[in-house]
């Protein structure tokens, strides 16, 4: 049997050295750990449906230049931090000095702060899940060139959403490793919007890690919009650790690509913590999207609510894997997971897998997953009122996800999502 391909050594030579020593040391250590590690294959459980889409060539190993040109960017309300190719662009960022909140580049941290950060980086992400294969989030840890540390002191409240626009400029092949760490103090609040966009047409990989730690009673809303181009393989991970009575709300809207992967891991570590995870994915053509979520109910009296919807058209492929792990001491846990899927063509594929591991005896845990097609009877009803086929298809498809889109608490993001969804509908229902 042919041995599994290993991560090319080319990927283990980070270029930029403009980071504080403790972060350089962390990066080096993470890189060393990846030497000779096999890449995920279809036998790697977490990559079963997605490994065939992972195509890392050596010319993608090089870090994309931070001085590349930026595209039009997105006009955003509120505060903005711009990243290009994984490196923050201060001149394109716009936010005031904020009371109780610091937004800093990793490169601007002093050695003590950097050492403290290095200690906590990766702590939100489980490293055991890709047994024997490269955990792709660790490749980010081995390669990040820059990053953003957002710290909220106790009771600090960000009055407007903070938009982080991650652009990748793919005029040449390469890769980018954006990294965010949010440290939310007791009873602090922030709404963070991450938008992933791209320009240029060469094949590139974007490998992202965003980590959130929530102190007692902290409240974070995280919104993630994935809108990169057809040349971008996107592998992202979001890790969350929640202390007592904190609340984390996530809204992910993803458009497919050659490879789209998002791992979202939430650990409910303090009593009374709760999370709400919403996700919408649409794929068309030969696109792919894979959402892997994990909710760890570690402490008692925590609530989790998860709702994901996938829509796959043409020959595209969407994956949802939702794991809920209720630990032995997590009595009175309340977990609700729901995943519904809509296939718009016979050639499309959706794989959904709920995974429940429950070790406590006094819990409420509900899960449901369905896969269906547009209802012909509903379609006939709509067109019998003079509504055109295309519009009827759009109404029914939108009905499938509208509830989740409407729950996104930032109007501009909803508008962006609607605009992109309309493009998706135009292409999918062309000629209908």
């Amino acid at each position, binding site marked *: 049997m042919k041995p599994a391909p290993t991560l090319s050594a080319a990927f283990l030579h980070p270029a930029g050295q403009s980071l504080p020593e403790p972060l350089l040391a962390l990066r080096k250590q993470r890189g060393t750990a990846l030497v000779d590690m096999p890449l995920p294959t279809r036998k790697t459980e977490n990559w079963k449906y997605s490994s065939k889409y992972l195509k890392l060539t050596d010319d993608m190993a090089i870090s994309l230049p931070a001085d590349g040109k930026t595209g039009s960017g997105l006009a955003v309300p509120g505060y903005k931090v711009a990243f290009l190719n994984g490196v923050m662009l201060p001149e394109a960022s716009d936010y005031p000095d904020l009371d109780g909140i610091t937004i800093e580049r990793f490169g601007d941290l002093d050695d003590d702060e950097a050492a403290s950060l290095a200690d906590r980086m990766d702590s939100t992400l489980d490293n055991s899940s890709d047994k024997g294969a490269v955990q792709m989030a660790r490749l980010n840890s081995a390669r990040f060139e820059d990053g953003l540390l957002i710290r909220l002191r106790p009771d600090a409240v960000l009055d407007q959403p903070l938009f982080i626009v991650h652009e990748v400029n793919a005029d040449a092949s390469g890769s980018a490793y954006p990294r965010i760490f949010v440290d939310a103090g007791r009873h602090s609040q922030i709404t963070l919007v991450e938008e992933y966009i791209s320009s240029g047409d060469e094949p590139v990989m974007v490998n992202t890690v965003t980590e959130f730690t929530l102190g007692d009673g902290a409240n974070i809303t995280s919104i993630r919009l994935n809108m990169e181009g057809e040349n971008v393989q996107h592998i992202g991970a979001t890790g969350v650790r929640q202390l007592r009575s904190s609340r984390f709300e996530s809204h992910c809207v993803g458009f497919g690509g050659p490879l789209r992967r998002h791992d979202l891991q939430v650990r409910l570590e303090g009593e009374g913590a709760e999370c709400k995870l919403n996700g919408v994915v649409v794929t068309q053509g030969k696109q792919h999207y894979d959402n892997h979520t994990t909710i760890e109910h570690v402490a008692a009296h925590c609530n989790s609510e998860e709702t994901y919807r996938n829509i796959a058209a043409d020959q595209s492929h969407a994956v949802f894997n939702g794991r809920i792990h209720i630990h032995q001491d997590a009595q009175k846990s309340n977990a609700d997971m729901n995943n519904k899927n809509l296939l718009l063509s016979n050639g499309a594929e959706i794989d959904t897998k709920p995974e429940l591991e429950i070790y406590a005896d006094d819990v409420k845990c509900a899960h449901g997953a369905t896969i269906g097609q547009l*209802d012909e*009877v*509903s379609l*006939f*009803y*709509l*067109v*019998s*009122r*003079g*509504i*055109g*086929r295309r*519009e*009827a298809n759009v*109404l*029914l498809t*939108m*009905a*499938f996800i*509208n*509830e989740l889109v409407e729950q996104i608490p930032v109007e501009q993001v909803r508008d962006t999502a609607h605009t992109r969804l309309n493009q998706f509908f135009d292409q999918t229902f062309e000629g209908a």
Partner: protein
Amino acid sequence: MLSIKNLHASVEGKEILKGINLEIKAGEVHAIMGPNGSGKSTLSQVLAGNEAFEITEGEITLNGENLLDLETEERAREGIFLAFQYPVEIPGVSNLQFLRTAVNAMRHHKGEAEMNAAEFMKLAKEVSKQVDLDPAFLKRGVNEGFSGGEKKRNEIMQALLLQPKLAILDETDSGLDIDALQVVSNGVNALRAEDRAILMVTHYQRLLNHIVPDHVHVLAGGKIVKSGGRELALELEERGYGWLGIKDDEEAAANSVN
């Protein structure tokens, strides 16, 4: 207005309609009565353009235009309206959005300007009162969680909004209590107009006490076996389908219970 000649239709290879002939003029109200399985609903669905039914023979014209050449949505825009026997629930699409999209599709077809949200809201509220529906229903999903009576009233409301040339009412009276029947009938009577025809499909004649037809046809075994005036419906009620030598499963079942 509507002319049906020797119409044969089948579903999954089974012939349901076996040579229907029917002429309906503008301003007329026709009732088609018949026992279950006689092909009443099939005729309604075929007129609206449901592709589940295959037309094997015959023709249908609306004001001289071949209806069979038109897609369902084109028929609707030409003025065919079917009030469904079982209106569909579509969660996630609001009634308001649905109705406005439909009205604007019609207006667009006629070369009229689309109605904006505020204009439409005003119109929809007025019409909803006509069928005694609380305007709050406009914000809910299409027919979502509606009672049987509310669904039927919503059908009539759509007819009032879309102002069709030919309104086909498929068992609109089924599942209605007497009050709801009155509301629905008032709505249908409001539709009566010189330039509009109405085709009612019903098992029972009680609806015809409220909406008095000009012509009554009895459908059995996929054919119209008898046509007459209003009095035909009354006679049918009195004497049952058996009078015409027609077997009615429902009646037989009811009799056996008695």
